[in-house]
């Protein structure tokens, strides 16, 4: 949002003032806040058909296409009362949802809205509530994408929040109560950007899935995501990529999982919530031309541990993909759940349970690849056989166990270890760990039990995964996508 500082403008002198005046005149000719202009950037040229009349409602609803894929879209009219939502504008949004659900096409909402219209009082609140109800009814039925390009405050914050994916342009601000109210109630001094701009929402709150440098890029991302969800394509033959160099030689060493995710996909996909709970990566992209969702532990962050935030992030992604029939690829390298008082009190039990529920509930085809470690409860949570994985692959480097072998024997064999002199303990631990690994963990045991189906070479990974997904019976979960 641009706020003109008149003091600064005056200081710049007459030339600058003339330039400003010229720019203003140009801006008046093509007002970038005109919803028809905004939707024109979002949708294919010449594809727009109005489904709401030209009026003072503050909302424009249309049908159109994104790379040929039919969609429904609506946009706040920020020129009228700052885009505030009244009864009439909300009626247009509800109507747009009716059309989208009837036609089974994605809905894209472009938001620049200060909230409910104050002058309409409770009538506008009732209308905003009806929008929420329409969004919830459509949840899991048609993909819903929100692009926030200006303020989305109060009721307008919860509109995007109810949808599947929220994109925030640099100019976007999302909050329930603005800085003035915060200041008057709690005394906290904060500006709009620090309260609800890209920084807090990308790193701290998890409200936003994609942050972009400007409005055009935000609209471009919306197009890309609408294409991925609205036109999923059919799997064709894939080329192989050799992933032999992805893992470091030392099994304790951290590495970034992004190159593996990128290499698995035909072209870079769209990573959702990249900076929030970065210890798990959730990316939508295509494999063999077909849309897939990739979930991967990232050992570079928190050792790749699952924690309450990452479990919640992954759960919502799993449920979104399941609702729209997008097959899942789960890349596992996880040392466990993150230990700590903070985690326990943060509800890692409750929030971690969401991931178990999401995978166990999912009907969509879902392939697991264990690349390195799969320990303890986190092994189960990462789409294990027990939760119903379609197929479980492992690289030869895989190790699955309740915990690391040395840590395990320190508990199981603690008396035996304590009985020997201190200087001999390390050697004994190592020997016991080796025996334990043979008996309890290790690849062969996992295969014998049927919790791993097949060991594949890193250089044959794409083909193996693509074949399973191509042969699996397509399915989608019959549920909504509650914003977990």
């Amino acid at each position, binding site marked *: 949002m641009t706020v003109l500082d008149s003091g600064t403008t005056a200081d710049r002198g007459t030339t600058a003032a003339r330039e400003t005046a010229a720019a203003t005149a140009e801006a008046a000719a093509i007002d970038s806040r005109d919803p028809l202009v905004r939707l024109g950037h979002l949708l294919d040229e010449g594809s727009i058909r109005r489904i709401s009349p030209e009026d003072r409602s503050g909302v424009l609803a249309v049908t159109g296409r994104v790379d040929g894929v039919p969609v429904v879209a609506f946009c706040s009219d920020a020129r009228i009362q700052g885009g505030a939502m009244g009864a009439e504008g909300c009626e247009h949004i509800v109507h747009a949802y009716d059309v989208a659900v009837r036609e089974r096409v994605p809905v894209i909402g472009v938001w620049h809205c200060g909230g409910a219209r104050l002058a309409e009082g409770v009538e506008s609140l009732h209308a905003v509530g009806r929008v929420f109800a329409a969004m919830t009814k459509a949840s899991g039925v048609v993909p819903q994408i929100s692009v926030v390009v200006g303020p989305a405050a109060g009721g307008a914050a919860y509109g995007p929040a109810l949808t599947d994916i929220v994109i925030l342009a640099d100019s976007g601000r999302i909050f329930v109560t603005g800085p003035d109210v915060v200041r008057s109630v709690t005394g906290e001094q904060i500006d709009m950007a620090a309260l609800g701009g890209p920084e807090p929402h990308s790193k701290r709150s998890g409200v936003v899935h994609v942050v972009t440098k400007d409005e055009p890029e935000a609209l471009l991302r919306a197009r890309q995501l609408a294409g991925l969800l609205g036109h999923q394509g059919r799997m064709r033959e894939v080329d192989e990529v050799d992933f032999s160099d992805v893992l470091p030689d*030392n099994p*304790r*060493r*951290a590495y970034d999982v992004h190159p593996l995710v990128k290499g698995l996909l035909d072209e870079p996909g769209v990573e959702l919530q990249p900076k929030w709970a970065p210890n798990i990566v959730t990316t939508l992209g295509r494999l063999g031309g077909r849309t897939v969702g990739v979930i991967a532990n990232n*050992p*570079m*962050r*928190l*050792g*790749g*541990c699952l924690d309450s935030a990452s479990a919640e992030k992954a759960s919502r992604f799993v449920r979104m993909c399941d609702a729209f029939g997008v097959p899942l690829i789960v890349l596992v390298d996880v*040392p*466990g759940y*993150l*230990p*700590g*008082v*903070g985690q326990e009190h943060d509800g890692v039990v409750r929030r971690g349970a969401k991931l178990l529920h999401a995978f166990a509930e999912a009907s969509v085809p879902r392939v697991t690849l264990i690349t390195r470690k799969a320990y303890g409860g986190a092994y189960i949570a990462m789409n294990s056989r027990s939760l119903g994985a379609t197929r479980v692959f492992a690289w030869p480097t895989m190790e699955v166990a309740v915990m*690391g072998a*040395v*840590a395990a024997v320190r508990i199981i064999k603690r008396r035996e270890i304590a009985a020997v002199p201190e200087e001999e303990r390390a050697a004994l631990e190592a020997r016991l760990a080796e025996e334990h690994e043979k008996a309890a963990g290790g690849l062969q045991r996992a295969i014998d039990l049927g919790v791993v189906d097949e060991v594949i070479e890193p250089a044959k990974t794409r083909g193996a995964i693509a074949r399973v997904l191509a042969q699996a019976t397509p399915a989608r979960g019959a549920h909504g996508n509650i914003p977990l």
Partner: protein
Amino acid sequence: MAEVHAEMVANVWKIVVSEGDVVDEGDTLVILESMKMEIPVLSEDPGTVTKIQVKEGDVVQEGDLIAVVE
């Protein structure tokens, strides 16, 4: 100024940078050891390391200050 805190209980395994070093976003400052894993602590912002609060062998608790980048 950005304070970098420990996100988990861990041993300090290796100090990678020194006070006064210029770092970029995503550079490794310190490597912790926990959960049988080496866990790099990354700088969230570009800047200069003005303080390293830990030394190798220390045990850090969740939330402890590790370094300051300005």
